[in-house]
């Protein structure tokens, strides 16, 4: 199979998966044994509900409703938040929330990687010795503690007892870079704890395998320094696995971010979902889930293609499966 055909097939798979996901989401809404219009505008009159039913295609049956939703979605109309009289659109909310969530995730990834890489390199270098064992044990515990537990403990200790950092809200760049990072620090810390553990263990395992390669023995026999061998000859090939898994951990990060965002009230996409559920704005929920899956699936596809370009071995291996 030619390379082009292979990627074409992958893209087709992704589109089919996304269509089924979005159809499933809209079917789920129609399965509620309660009239959706009544839920969306609990205080509205019957005529207002009738207008709403016509507007979003609730009277068309599941497939008609889905097709109308899909048509609007493709054109960028993600529905409205009817709670406040139908003046606010979901796309406006998401346009505001998206950058915050993306920033939060970017900071988390950068922070987690910048802690995990040195730790992973050290523990691979000292594999089986005391330093390695201590790091591994601490990381094992870190990986098991859920992010919200760390968030709540941070709030008690750093936010309430010491009063060093604000426990709620979000500050934009324009409100001052220092303020911005003060608001972001605790959410980033709570999200990155588990990731640090995952990344370090992965990098350690991969580097230990790379250290056994012949070219490392060759480099050692040439008399290169340990540091140079570790970073240039061992870390570089192992880092591809690390960055791939960092990219693939985005899904878990999005889920974790919902809880963390609602604990710290940072008003990101996660908080938007939380608000949609609390206010029973299910159209907004459906569109948010669709946007997240779209983002997540395409991100995975890009990672897949990207890692194929960086390391041709993975490309061949995948093509053979």
């Amino acid at each position, binding site marked *: 199979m030619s390379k082009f055909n292979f990627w074409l097939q992958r893209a087709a798979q992704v589109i*089919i998966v996304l269509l089924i*996901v979005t159809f499933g989401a809209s079917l*789920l*809404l129609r399965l509620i044994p309660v009239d959706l219009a009544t839920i969306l505008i609990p205080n509205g009159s019957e005529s207002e509900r009738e207008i709403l039913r016509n507007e979003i295609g609730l009277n068309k049956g599941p497939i008609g409703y889905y097709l109308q939703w899909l048509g609007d979605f493709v054109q960028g109309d993600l529905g409205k938040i009817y709670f406040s009289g139908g003046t606010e659109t979901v796309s406006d909310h998401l346009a505001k929330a998206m950058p915050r969530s993306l920033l939060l995730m970017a900071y988390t990834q950068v922070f987690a990687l910048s802690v995990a890489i040195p730790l992973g390199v050290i523990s691979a270098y000292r594999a089986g010795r005391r330093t390695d064992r201590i790091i591994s044990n601490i990381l094992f515990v870190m990986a098991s503690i*859920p992010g919200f537990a760390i968030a709540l403990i941070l709030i008690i200790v750093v936010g309430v007892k010491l009063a060093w950092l604000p426990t709620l809200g979000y500050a934009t760049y324009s409100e001052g870079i220092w303020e911005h990072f003060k608001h972001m620090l605790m959410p980033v810390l709570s999200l990155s704890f588990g990731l640090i553990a995952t990344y370090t263990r992965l990098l350690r395992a991969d580097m230990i395998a790379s250290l056994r390669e012949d070219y490392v023995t060759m480099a050692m026999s040439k008399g290169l320094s340990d540091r140079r061998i570790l970073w240039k000859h061992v870390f570089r090939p192992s880092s591809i696995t690390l960055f791939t898994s960092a990219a693939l951990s985005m899904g878990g990060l999005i889920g*974790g971010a919902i*809880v963390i965002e609602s604990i710290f009230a940072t008003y990101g996409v996660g908080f938007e979902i939380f608000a949609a559920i609390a206010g029973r704005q299910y159209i907004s929920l459906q569109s948010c*889930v669709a946007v997240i899956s779209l983002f*997540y699936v395409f991100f995975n596809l890009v990672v897949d293609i990207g890692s194929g370009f960086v390391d041709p071995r993975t490309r061949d291996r995948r093509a053979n499966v």
Partner: protein
Amino acid sequence: MFNNSKFTKPTWLSISWLGLMLFLAVFGSLLPFKSWKFVYEDDLGVVPFSPGHILGTDNNGYDLLASLIAGTRMSIFIAVTAVSLGGLIGSALGITAAFVRGKVDTVMSTLFNVGLAVPNLVLALALVSVLATNVDINQSVPTWRRVMVLIVSLTIVLIPILGRIARGATLSWSGRDFVTAARSMGMRDRQIIMKHIVPNVLPALIAVAFLAVGVVIIAEASLSILGVGIPDGASWGGMIARGRNDLEYSPHVLYIPVIFLAITVISTNQIGEVLRSKLDSREAKV
């Protein structure tokens, strides 16, 4: 694989902790404690290790030890039920798909990918909130219905995860020589699956199931913190959600369920990892 001679100390500690949790979950209601809903009006916000209240009380006067025992029952019940159901359905689908191959496998893999295309917690959150909808916003959903909805949603979340692992394991086993041999001897497909595939795939699934129990406990707690799990503090997550309200004056109300939850997740992860590494060394010998 389960020869217990080589378990290390942390593994034994994990096994005993999980044993204790199981004991509390099964026999907790028989222990001589008052119901966790009993309000000690004279002891509001008592700190831990006080006489009469070993773990203290919260600001509403609920005894935390009694709450914890009730919470253990709920959290363990939800986790064990969801993982068993998800594991059974997922592995049945995954093994069948990988064994039959062809169109069945394509459809099944696509469906698994659909489940995996939505991040776990987002999927669980969407399912729980939609399935537990009531007509009247002011009327609360009964607890048993919330528990049912939680279990169903978490099961649906787990099916593609465990199903894909079962599928992958089956693919690697069904190509081995002994399967070809069994087939050439005229064994039926169903017999081959039950006699040759399932016993080989099962250990890997059990190891993952332990990890999944930890994931489900955390997911249940996350959902409760978001306000769509078990209300009124009848589970660990519910207790954590309630503890958030008086962070400043009685932080122990929050610390205690968090510590219980964390130790339980550490234990399930430890056992899962040990089983997996034993499995890997067995694989290496083959």
